[in-house]
């Protein structure tokens, strides 16, 4: 079972995502933005960071990377894809997920331990959590405020595609949304960082590990 983690120029949490995949029991594979080959991975993580320096808009340039073309195709065929923070922004820019992420309403970068509620535990990345499971993982971002038009928000809610919600909104996200999925539930975008909460030594909790163990099961099941 191989989880690929893409490194774009300016990716920062790529090594952390690989470590989290390994802690969960997967083989972590480093993927390069300029290489369209996914090297046989079963799932992909788009990690946090400031890919291409957030030039233009966060994630706006990365979506055109050669690796993204393959990922977009494979995601359409059901391969699990998790976009964390900047990776979430890339997924929105790629139109794999609706909505957009704009600057935090308080205009500052924020790094804190953040409580969330898992609202949908049937996606490829959240099946190991209980329904309405409350977890605390790391939040750190500059452009973390999730926005979409009312119709899109209603649709996300109606289809159960709000994957996680903030308990105490840290950045002005509409309807406290911290993460969403596509219709099929294989593509998930999440603003907070589960990869920083997989070891008690270095993280606030190990609550983030469930994202990585969930996908192992999803891949085995498929």
């Amino acid at each position: 079972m191989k989880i690929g983690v893409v490194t774009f120029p300016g990716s920062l949490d790529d090594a952390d995502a690989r470590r989290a995949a390994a802690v969960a029991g997967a083989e972590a594979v480093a993927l390069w933005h300029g290489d369209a080959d996914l090297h046989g991975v079963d799932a992909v993580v788009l990690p946090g960071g400031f890919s291409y320096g957030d030039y233009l808009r966060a994630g706006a340039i990365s979506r055109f990377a050669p690796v993204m073309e393959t990922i977009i195709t494979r995601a359409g065929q059901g391969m699990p894809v998790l976009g964390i923070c900047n990776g979430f922004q890339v997924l929105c820019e790629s139109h794999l997920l609706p909505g957009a992420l704009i600057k935090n309403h308080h205009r500052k970068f924020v790094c804190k331990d953040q409580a969330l509620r898992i609202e949908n535990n049937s996606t490829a990345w959240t099946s190991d959590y209980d329904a309405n499971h409350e977890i605390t993982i790391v939040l750190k971002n500059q452009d973390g405020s999730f926005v979409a038009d009312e119709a899109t928000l209603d649709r996300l809610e109606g289809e159960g595609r709000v994957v996680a919600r903030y308990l105490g909104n840290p950045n002005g996200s509409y309807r406290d949304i911290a993460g969403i999925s596509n219709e099929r539930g294989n593509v998930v975008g999440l603003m907070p960082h589960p990869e920083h909460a997989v070891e008690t030594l270095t993280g606030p909790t190990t609550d983030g590990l469930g994202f990585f163990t969930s996908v192992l099961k999803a891949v085995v099941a498929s």
Partner: protein
Amino acid sequence: MSTDTVSNATSTPDVEQPWAELGLKPDEYQRIRDILGRRPTSCELAMYSVMWSEHCSYKSSKVHLKRFGEIPQETPAGKMLAGIGENAGVIDIGEGYAVTFKVESHNHPSYVEPYQGAATGVGGIVRDIIAMGARPVAVMDPLRFGPLDAPDTKRVLPGIVSGVGGYGNSLGLPNIGGEVVFDPTYLGNPLVNALCVGVMRHEDLHLANATGVGNQMILYGAKTGGDGIGGVSVLASETFAEGGPTKRPAVQVGDPFMEKLLIECTLELFAANVVEGIQDLGGGGLSCATSELASAGDGGMRVSLDKVPLRDASLSPEEILMSESQERMMACVTPENVEAFLKICEKWDVQADVIGEVTDTGRLEIDWHGERVVDVLPETVAHEGPVYNRPYERPSWQDELQADGAEKLPRASNGAELRDTLLKLVASPNLCDKSWVTDQYDRYVLGNSVLAQPEDSGMIRVDETSGLGVAVSTDCNGRFAKLDPYTGAKLALAESFRNVATTGARPAAVTDCLNFGSPEDPAVMWQFTEAIRGLVDGCKELGIPVTGGNVSFYNQTGETAILPTPVVGVLGVIDDVTRRTPIGFTPEMEGHQLYLLGETEEELSGSEWAHVVHGHLGGRPPAVDLAAEQQLADILINASRDGLIDAAHDVSDGGVAQTLVESALRGGVGARVWAPDGLDPFLFLFAESAGRAVVAVPRTEEVRFTDMCTARRFPHAKIGVITGDTLDVQDQFEVPLTELREAWTATLPSVLN
């Protein structure tokens, strides 16, 4: 304007030159003429002016800094692999790993343009670390500002904090500690010091030199622009005069994305073994890199300045030599490796150009479109600048200041007054919660941050398998240094040393950032020499060397100098980071016994209490006993290794009261405490005697712990127990943690939001 070539300079000896505008003194200009045997070309003048500036040449401090060489160059962890004079010091920490760390100032640029000044301060120190061959693994930022409620602090502080965060966060480097200190003397002159830690394998160590005739000099990274021209000579080496012209254009502009690429690209270049020598371009830009690399090498260097890629095609050769554009490095590469070098740069989209080569002439020769514009001996530029023995004299006011002790001031004398004093102190700018600042820094990235602010020191895991790690703390109490610079410097060293030991790490090496006023003021110069004497004596006593650092002079507004601020960074090594000791009292520690280690004396001068309650600064700082600090450190390290303590927190600013409040709020559980026999409750709570820490001992380990202290004849007193949701000072007062938290957390947001 035609190019001022060497031959032109020889034939027109009497041309007027703008040496004064470039910050040179008349005798310095004459010395350049004497060295060259002619007038300098305008390019040579630019180079000398930059490299002979205070910032680059250390001309006022050199004679004193030499004293750091007296300290034995062995560390308790292992050998020093590179020391003062390299981009950063390097020490062996075992298991084949080496660690490099250094702190630098970026004070004046951060006052002029807070965001970019602070951002490029981080960028500069990170490049120093990568130039050694190390991967940067953490940063820390000791910051000092004017009074919190001053209007200009509201301009300067948010910009500096977001600059530190904006740059460091974008590089993916965890910010694991530092300081935020307020004092009126920093109002027109905030201090922005930046520290970076890097890790490498021994074999990856690289030094800055250009050797091997025929080897190619490659400039890589960002293109050169007009930013930061004269930054060093104009900004860092002159006092801000009120009403003077604005100096904004001389501040550099940073691009952290380019720096991130530069980090990854440089590490890949090292791994591919295609680099002979390397240096970052920081203060002094190409003038500094070419002259330092050439003078550290075994030959000379020829550079074609017109091959430097430019962001602004209109730049003159003089400006190119002086530009401090960020995110640039220069490497010395053998001809057969050039292609491989350029290929790696291309992979990372990093521009790289061969701009020169190593020669056998012993000279630094620089051409501009085929015409020679510089022909000098590189060491005369890089190392043979003026050296000043500036006059220094103990100021006449020092005796009067020291006679005015805080011990005579009125103190709280009953429970209710003690309670009021505590709440006032907890909410004061220097003691309050700093998360408004530190929440803007990423402390988690890279996944190896074992401890980060507000812990006593930041701690980074170096090896995931063995658990080997390093801890770093930076400290300085400028008020103590004002009262007695010699003792104040020792106290800064002692506090930083103690903070590292409190987390369970063995202190191994020191870096320092010596922030002072104008060296042309004999009183400031005396403070400086005394601080160095204190650090040298202190390091000798503790058996740890100074591996590098930085001097920042001219930190004053008009006639008012800042508090002498010798910031000391201590790095320690811990064999197994899972044994680290945090500060917090957590629910699992309910019922643990609290011990105060060390002696408490009637020492209130320079304290936070005197500052906050009485606005007073006078008297003598607390006594410092480094043998006792060493003993205390041994106890803390052994107790951590043997599992005898579960929490520990050093006692410094604000006294035992602040220590207890921070530990309780950090872990969420309170304490019931009492003053040890014979100690006045006020002094117990608020005195700032050095050499102390509060530790939490499980009941099951109490006998073993106290036996260890007794065997070492180290003073220890039981002062309470971890319990409940209040801080209960028996027979005096009780405060709910909720009330303490409210007071502690409200201060910064109420002013800065």
